[in-house]
């Protein structure tokens, strides 16, 4: 077990955490999760022990998700019932995910868990990321061709899920406009929690699952994910706080930036259509997927599968991997800002045209 020590915090680190928190918050506010995977490595680079970095990250996550959920509730995008139901199962999934990680660490050591995490990253992001991106692209093209894309289209699988009636397990969800058996919600929530415990971003399963497997609109799915993140984050924080591993100073510094960000992300969703959420999410997922490729040679050489790599080369590869993660966030952040600025400009223009017609000023 690694020693729990709290570092001395420098001004430069405060600024760094504030900025990463700000962009991470923007992405979370928009797509429901994300940002977490950059904060943990960022803290570890500053010398924070792994367990304290994970604990402090999760302690900033639940208040952030709560503020984001309340904000998006104002816009009528949150399905609390679905979020709480998924969240309850996600809590179980998170616990199971931790057990798996502990088991792997015991059997294969730290490099074993790193390899496991990378494998999960690659498999989940490759399948879900490509799927989400393809769907966003299809919607975008349909929109360009002038087709009606405003009505949310429910997938065939989701229609089937909504049609299955299992007595005693049915719950009605506002976001789906239908009743779905809890037996479908349970594995999806569980998988979301397991992924969160493994790669820190459960939303990469939760949001697409709510969209494609349950039939929720993308905007509502990403808003509802914030409720799941809140439930998981609170549970995780209690878990780590009982071990005294939460450095509240670090958590609140990240929160300072991320609460500015989450408001921008949430406001951004009111200006965009469903496909924009899918596009940003898919883009981030695919870039994050590539970041893993840079870490793989290091793990393989540590395990003795390939010839040992030089320290310089290893440091470079790690830097490239971390850099790609930052790139994923930056691309997401810029895409959100762009959507927001463009949306506001269009809205202002419409407003001015209307005002000119009416002959009144706002």
């Amino acid at each position: 077990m690694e020693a729990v020590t709290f570092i001395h915090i420098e001004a430069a680190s405060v600024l760094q955490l504030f900025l990463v928190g700000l962009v991470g918050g923007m992405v979370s506010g928009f797509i429901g999760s994300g940002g977490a995977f950059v904060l943990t490595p960022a803290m570890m680079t500053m010398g924070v022990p792994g367990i304290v970095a994970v604990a402090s990250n999760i302690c900033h996550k639940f208040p952030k998700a709560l503020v984001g959920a309340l904000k998006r509730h104002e816009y009528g995008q949150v399905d609390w019932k679905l979020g709480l139901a998924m969240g309850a199962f996600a809590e179980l999934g998170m616990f199971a995910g931790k057990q798996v990680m502990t088991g792997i660490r015991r059997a294969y050591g730290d490099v074993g868990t790193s390899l496991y995490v990378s494998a999960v990253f690659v498999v989940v992001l490759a399948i879900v990321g490509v799927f989400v991106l393809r769907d966003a692209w299809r919607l975008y093209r349909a929109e360009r061709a002038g087709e009606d894309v405003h009505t949310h289209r429910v997938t065939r699988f989701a229609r089937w899920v909504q049609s299955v009636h299992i007595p005693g397990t049915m719950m009605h969800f506002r976001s789906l406009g239908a009743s779905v058996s809890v037996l479908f919600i349970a594995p999806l929530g569980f998988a979301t929690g397991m992924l969160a415990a493994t790669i820190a971003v459960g939303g990469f399963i939760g949001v697409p699952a709510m969209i494609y497997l349950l039939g929720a609109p993308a905007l509502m799915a990403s808003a509802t994910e914030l409720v799941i993140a809140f439930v998981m984050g609170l549970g995780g924080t209690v878990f780590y706080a009982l071990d005294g591993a939460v450095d509240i100073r670090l958590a609140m510094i990240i929160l300072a930036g991320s609460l500015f960000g989450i408001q921008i992300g949430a406001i951004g969703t009111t200006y965009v259509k469903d496909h924009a959420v899918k596009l940003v999410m898919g883009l981030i997922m695919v870039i994050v997927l590539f970041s893993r490729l840079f870490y793989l040679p290091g793990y393989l050489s540590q395990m003795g599968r390939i010839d040992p790599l030089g320290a310089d080369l290893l440091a470079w590869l790690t830097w490239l991997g971390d850099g790609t993660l930052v790139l994923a966030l930056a691309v997401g952040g810029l895409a959100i800002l762009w959507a927001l600025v463009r949306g506001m400009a269009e809205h202002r223009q419409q407003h001015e045209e209307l005002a000119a017609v009416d002959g009144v000023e706002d």
Partner: protein
Amino acid sequence: MSSLVKAVVYGAASLALYALLFVYADQTVEFARRTREGEKIWFLVPIVIAFAFSLVHGAFTGSFWEAIGLRPVDKKRSK
């Protein structure tokens, strides 16, 4: 209350909270140490702090963006 007044009030409260955290930073580290040593009740300290900051600082950041003109589109329409 206009968004500007709200931003100033919550901004001041938020600043005060961060000032308190800065002043009592060593105590929070101490609480974590005592939790590790078996006084489990102190696990509540970071959780209560996190809730307090999220409410106050969250209200500040919301009204801050609103005050400088970043507003959601639907809300504006309904006004």
